[in-house]
């Protein structure tokens, strides 16, 4: 019976698409974490936030307990999201890490070797994106978790506070990763457009700077408000939703959270598909 089924099974061809995405992602991850600029990024994204906690201390804290611990933990996490992960320097580091993933390969002439294997261009782009997201998870997670739990421990939170607020932390991190994903996808688009990583860096920074400035000013109701050079306004608008389940106090126009998340995901997919199309029609000299 089995002998009769075997040849039939072997004749069924599963679609081969997507097989190479994890391979490319894993290769990117393991090669990036050995690079010098990764250590620079790790210093900024991991070491400095953790050190800041230790330096800040609790000079003014009179009361301790679950409520105050959660308040401090969530406020600090949100603050760090703003300061480190979505700020201008955070964006620059992300762009620099991502920019040479495709353009650098073309520049170093290793790209023809990869393309001489049965791999779709979209697999290259989506693989590179997944790999960079893995790198970002490695960079973001430890510092965020250490910060969050440091405050819970230091301010004597009850033990059930750790688990019951976990969904909020995870939600916030997913939100953060999606925002970073937009930056990564945009940089990959420029990376596949140019043959030099420097141009990819400059191009994506220019777009990011313009976009964040415009969107910051347009979405703020007060026309005299300060100019935003980051995507802080997005965090201001949505993280209180996730963390405190309250609407923000500032006068900001807010679309619903779900539609906003869907928009972000579709922007990422759109950018990656454009990157694929550019790469598909590119003649690599």
């Amino acid at each position: 019976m089995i002998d009769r089924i075997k040849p039939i099974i072997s004749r069924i061809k599963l679609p081969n698409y997507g097989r190479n995405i994890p391979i490319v992602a894993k290769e990117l991850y393991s090669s990036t974490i050995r690079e010098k600029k990764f250590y620079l990024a790790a210093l900024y994204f991991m070491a400095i936030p953790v050190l800041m906690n230790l330096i800040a201390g609790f000079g003014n804290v009179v009361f301790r307990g679950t409520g105050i611990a959660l308040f401090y933990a969530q406020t600090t996490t949100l603050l760090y999201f703003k300061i480190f992960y979505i700020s201008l320097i955070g964006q620059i580091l992300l762009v620099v890490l991502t920019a040479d993933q495709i353009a650098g390969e073309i520049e170093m002439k290793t790209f023809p070797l990869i393309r001489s294997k049965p791999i779709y261009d979209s697999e290259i782009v989506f693989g590179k994106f997944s790999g960079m997201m893995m790198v970002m998870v490695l960079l973001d997670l430890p510092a965020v978790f250490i910060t969050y739990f440091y405050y819970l421990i230091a301010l004597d939170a009850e033990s059930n506070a750790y688990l019951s607020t976990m969904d909020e932390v995870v939600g916030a991190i997913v939100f953060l990763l999606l925002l970073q994903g937009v930056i990564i996808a945009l940089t990959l688009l420029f990376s596949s457009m140019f043959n030099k990583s420097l141009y990819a860096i400059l191009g994506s920074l220019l777009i990011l700077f313009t976009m964040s400035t415009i969107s910051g000013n347009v979405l703020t109701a007060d026309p005299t408000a300060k100019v935003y050079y980051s995507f802080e306004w997005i965090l201001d608008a949505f993280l209180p939703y996730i963390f405190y389940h309250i609407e923000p106090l500032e006068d900001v126009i807010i679309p619903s959270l779900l539609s906003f998340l869907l928009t972000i995901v579709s922007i990422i997919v759109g950018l990656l598909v454009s990157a694929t199309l550019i790469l598909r029609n590119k003649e690599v000299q």
Partner: protein
Amino acid sequence: MDSVIQIDHLYKTIGGKTILLDVTLEVPRGSLFGLLGPNGAGKSTCLKLITGRMRTSSGNIRVLGFDPWKDRVKMFNEVGYLPQNPSAPVDAKVLNFMKYMARLKGMSKKDAVINSREALAKVGLEKFEGATVGKLSGGEIQRLAFANSLLGDPEVLILDEPTASLDPEGRVYVMDLIQKLSRDKSQTVIVSSHILPEIQRMTNHIAILSEGQVLVAGNMRDLTANIFDNEYEIETSHPQELYDILKGEGYDIELENQTIIIDVGKRIRQIWNDIPKICAENNYELRSFKPVRDALENVFLRYVSNNQRGVGYD
């Protein structure tokens, strides 16, 4: 005879400059095909078009029935490619790089390691397994990229200047390897080079490209069959004496560094009779008697120099 690669009236223009001009070629299955031509003749562009790195301006290419630009992925299941002046990521370890490439070729983790080791051993790099790519010499990187193109035993191997940047020993090694691959596994191998003796040694079919055009293509034996060189060189124990005798017979002859250079003109049959006879009669030792240029060199010079003068060869 069925062919693995068919190129049909191919044109390629880059930045207003025509690189390939009406190229029509067929590469027969199982052949060792040499793409020969001076620098800038369009050999690399031709191979880039065949491997889908570039799009044709007009014309048609079929590699194993696939269009290289549209079906690049399907095509590379069966094709191995060594680009010109290859490079590999400098930070990676040699075996890890090969494993990554083998995985992209569609192998499982276990097969990838086995195949990588085999391929590295084939090109003689097995002892560099654990080394970083950045520490390899130019020739070793060339061999590494060659090993990469061998992964998965492809039906067609496309090698762009495989012996460039290799030392003499490496050249011989790679040339022997290419011949062996074609003989043992009946793989079709396409090699480009501007070095005549290498092509002559490696291949059995050639196409000569010059200024974007195919001047001549075909079986090496057919091409060289009716080509005779007029100039022969003779080495004997008594060059001066032989020189005097042959001069007396009315040959167009010169003596350079104890070697006699003789232009046989139309007396080719006669000279093959005369020389051994004269030497035997006078007790001279005949050490060598051969054409100054070999056959392929003659073919090449005839076609290429005629093309560059703009005069057709009849």
